[in-house]
C-alpha cells in the first residue's frame, strides 16, 4: 500500500492506515488501538507492540495524529497516553480509503471479491 498517488503526497503504510482508521471514531491509547485493529479485522491483523509503536512514532511525526488530553475511558490509569487523529490525518485516511475503494471496484468488476455471506 506504499504507493504514491497522483497528488504526489507521501505513501501510507498499512500499519499507519490501520492506526488512522482505529482513531477515526475516537481517541484511544496504544493498547486500545491494538485492540481495535484486532477486533475490527476479526483477529486477522494483529500488530506486535514494537511494530505498532514504530508506526505510531512515524504517524506522529507526519502530523496525522497527536497526543490528546481527552480521557474517554473511565477509571483509567492517568499515566496512559491517548492519541487522536488530526484534520490532516483525517484527510489522509479518507484519501487512502477512496483509493482502496477504486481498486476494489475494479476487482469486483472482475469477479475477484469473495462471496457475500460473511460480515
Amino acid at each position, binding site marked *: 500500500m506504499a504507493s504514491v498517488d497522483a497528488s504526489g503526497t507521501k505513501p501510507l503504510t498499512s500499519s499507519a492506515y490501520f492506526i488512522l482508521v482505529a482513531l477515526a471514531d475516537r481517541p484511544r491509547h*496504544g493498547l486500545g488501538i491494538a485492540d481495535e485493529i484486532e477486533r475490527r479485522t476479526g483477529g486477522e491483523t494483529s500488530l*506486535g507492540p*514494537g511494530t505498532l509503536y514504530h508506526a505510531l512514532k*512515524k504517524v506522529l511525526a507526519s502530523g496525522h495524529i497527536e497526543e490528546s488530553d481527552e480521557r474517554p475511558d473511565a477509571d483509567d490509569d492517568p499515566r496512559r497516553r491517548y492519541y487522536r487523529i488530526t484534520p490532516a490525518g483525517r484527510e489522509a485516511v479518507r484519501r487512502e480509503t477512496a483509493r482502496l475503494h477504486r481498486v476494489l471496484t475494479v476487482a469486483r468488476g472482475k469477479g475477484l471479491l469473495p462471496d457475500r455471506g460473511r460480515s
Partner: protein
Amino acid sequence: MRRRILAALLFLYPRADRERFGGEILDLMWDRLQRARRRGLLAEMRFWLSLLWDTSRSAVSFRLSDRVTPSALDGVLVDLRYAWRSLVRRRGFTATAILCMTLGLGATTAVFSAFYGVMVRPLPFSDPDRLAVLFETAPGFTRASPSFRDYAFWKGRAHTFSGMEGYAGVRGPLTHAGSADFVEGGAVTPGLFPLLGVEPVLGRGFTREDGRATSPATLILSGALWRRSFGSDPDVLGRTVSFKGEPRTIVGVMEGQFAFPQNAELWIPKSAERDSGLLSAAVARLAPGATWSDARTEMDGIARQLEALDPESQAERRVEVRPLEEDLLWGFRGPVAVFFLSVGLILVLATANVAQLMLAQGSARTREMILRGALGAGRARTARLLLLESLLVSITAGALGLALGVGARDLFLRWLPERLPYYLSFDLDARALLVLLGITVLVGLLFGLAPALAVARPDLFTGLRNAGDPVGGHRGAQRFRAVLVAAQVALALTVLNGAGAMFKSLLDLNEVDPGVSMDRVLSFQVSLPQDHDTGGADAVRFFDDLREEIQKLPAVESAASVSNLPIAGSAAGTFLSVEGVEPPARGHEPWVINKVVQPGFFHTMGIGILAGRAFSRADHAGTPHVVVVNEAFARHYWPDGNALGKRIKYGRPDSGWPWMEIVGVSGDVRQFGLDRPVEMGIYEVLAQQPMDRSWVVVHSRVEPTVLIRQVREIVTRLNPDAPMYDVKTMREWLYRTQWRPVVYARVFNVFSGIALLLGAVGIYGVVAFTAARRTREFAVRTAVGARRREVVGLAMRWVLRPVGLGLMGGVALSVLLTRLARTMTVGVGTVDLGVLSVTTVILVGVALVATYLPAYRATHVDPVTLLRSE
C-alpha cells in the same frame, strides 16, 4: 518475573524511543502476554517467539529510521541486493565463476583438512611439543630397541628431562567370559600415562605397586576395547581376564580413542621385576628451561658412559632424542606438504580464471559503469559494488566447496590402507573453518580487485570510445589478459606434470619384481600357547598337521609356514659368521634376515631355487643343520664362487651355535616393500628350529578370501586355543607398503582433471571474449573475401604467444616443484622428457580446442546480418 523479561526486551530499542514509549509498549506487551497465558502453555510459547521477532525487527526499524541521512550500512545493503540481482541476471558468467571457484575451494578444503590435522592441531597430550621419544642407534641401525637396563640407566642420570618412561608393544590372545580376541597392546612403565597427561575414565592408572612381582597382575583397557568387547559395562573393574595365558585384573579404562603407542587396546605394567624385556622406546618430557640441544648433548654423554661400562653390547650405540610430534607424524607431513603446494597452484589457477572472467565482464559492462558514474555513483561506490559481487561469488563457491571438500576428504580417507591413528584427525573445527572462510574472502577480494581497479581508474571517457574498439579495450587490459593466459597454462602444466611424476613412480614400482607370487596367496599368523616340555616337537607337529590339512582342501595349491612374511615389512634379523671369513669389528656386523620355513615354502611363494636344493622332509631334528641363503647373501660373500657347501653360524665364530651348511641359494625377495633394497637373508627349516608362532601362506587356485572360513575351522580343530590373526592376502600386504604412490597418483589425477578443466574454461572464456568483440571485423573480412580458415586463425593467433610462454614457464616450475617435493616425501618420480611430452601434448590439445571453439563461433556469424544490424 515475566514482567522483568519484558522490561529487559525494551533495552533493544534506542534510548530516546524507550523513554518516550517504553511504558506503553510494556503495557501492551503485558496485556498480550496475559491473554496468551489464559489460552494455555503452547499459546504462551508462541507469544514469546512472536514477541522476540517483533521486538528485534522493530528495534532495527527504530534505529534505522533515526538516521536522517542514509548510512554506510544502508548503502552496503542496497549494493548487496543490486550485486545479487546483477549476478543472477548474468547466469552464464555467474555459473562459470562459481564452478571454477567451487573446484578450487573444494580441493583447498579437502587438502586443508589434512594439513590442519597434521601440521596445526596439537597432539592429544599435555604440552605435546615438550615430549620426546628416545631410542638407540647403532652402526647399520637407524633405530634399535633399548634394553630395560639401558632405559633405567638413562632415567637415573638424565637431568634435562623432568620425567622418563618406557613402553613396548605386546600382542596376544585376550580371553574373557568365554570369548577370545587377538589384541595389540602396550607394556608401559607406571608413570607413562601421567607423563603424557592422559587419565583413565574408569578406575585408575598403574602404580609402582603394579610393577612388583609380588602384586597381582593388572591390566588396563582402552576405551575402544571396553566399548567393543565389554559393552561399556561400568562394572568391568575388578574382573579377571586372561591375556597371553596369564590371568590379570582389570583396574582401569582409558579415555576416548587413546591407543598409545599405535593401536594399543590394552596395557600391562612393565618394570624391572615384571617384564624387563626390550623396550620399543622411552618417552620423556623436557624439563622446564631445557632445550632440545641440551637434551641431546646430555644423552650423548650418557650413551658414552654406558658404552664405557659395557663395550661388548653397547659398542658405538648412541641415543637419539626425537620430538614425539615428529615421530608420530613423520609419515604424514611430507605428503601433506606436497598436496598443500599443489592445491595452492589449483587455487591460484581458479582465481586467475575468475579474474579473467570478471575482467571480460567488466569490459562488457563498461557502458553500464559509465552511466552509473554519470548518474552520480562515486568511483569508490562502483568499485565496492564489484567487490561485493566477487564476494558473493566466492562465498557461495566457498559453501559449495566446503561440502565438496568434506566429501573428497572422506573419499581420500577410504583410500588409505588403515584408519588414521588415534592422535590424528582430519575433522574441521571452528578455527579451521574460520581459516577457510578467510581464504574464501581473500580469494574473492583478489579476483574482484582486477575489475574494481579497472573501474576506479580515471579513463571512463576513453572507455566510452573504446567500448566499440576492434582490439577490445586498451593495451593494458590486453596485456593483462595475455599474462593471465600464460599463468593459467603454466599452473595447469605444473599440476599435470606433478601427476605425471607420481604416475611414473607408480609405474616404476610396478616394474619391480617382488620376488614372490602376489596372486591368490592368503596369509595369516597362528600362535600356539607356549610349550616348553617337548622341545618344540609339538609345535612342529602342529604346523605339519596344519599344512597337511590345508593342502587337502581342493581349492588349495600348496601351503607352508614362514616366520616372517615377505613384503609385509617386518623381519627378525641377526648377526652371522661365515666360515673362513674374517668377522667384522664389533658393532659393525651386517644384519641378515633369518626366517624359519617349512618345506614347500619356496614353491608356495613362487621363489626360485637358483642353486642346490630347497628343504625337504629329510631335514629334521636328527639330521645336520642346513640353511638356504638368498642370492644377495651368496653374491655378497662369494661373488664369483659357489655358496653351496660353505658353512655359517649365528653369532661370532666362537659362539656356541652349531655350524650350518648351505644347501641351496634362493631368489631375492623384497622384505620391506618394493621400493626398498633387497636384504641379505637365510632360511632354516622349521623341523630344525621349532617356533610356536608363525605365519602361514596358502597358494590358492581361487580367490583366496574364499578359503578363510575353512582354514579357520582347521586351525580351531587342530588346537582350539591357538588364535589365528592378521589374515590378509598378499595383494593387501603389497598395498600397505606401496599405498603411497598409488594414493598420490590418484590424488594428482583428480588435481590434473581439475587443472585441465579450469585451464580449458579460462582459455575458452578469454578467447570467446576477445573474439566476440571483433565480430564486426571478422564479418567485414569475410564479406570482402577472406577465407573462413584465415579469419578463424586471426581470432586464435594472439593466444599462441601467451600459451607458448606459459608452457615454458610451466616446465620450469614443474621441475622446481618436483625437486622440492622429492625432498619432502618418497614416492615422487622425476619429470623427465617422457612425462613432459605427454603432459604438454595433452595441455596443448586442450588449449587448442578451447581456443578453436569460441573462435569458430565468433567468426561464423553471418556477415550480412551482422553488418546490417550495425
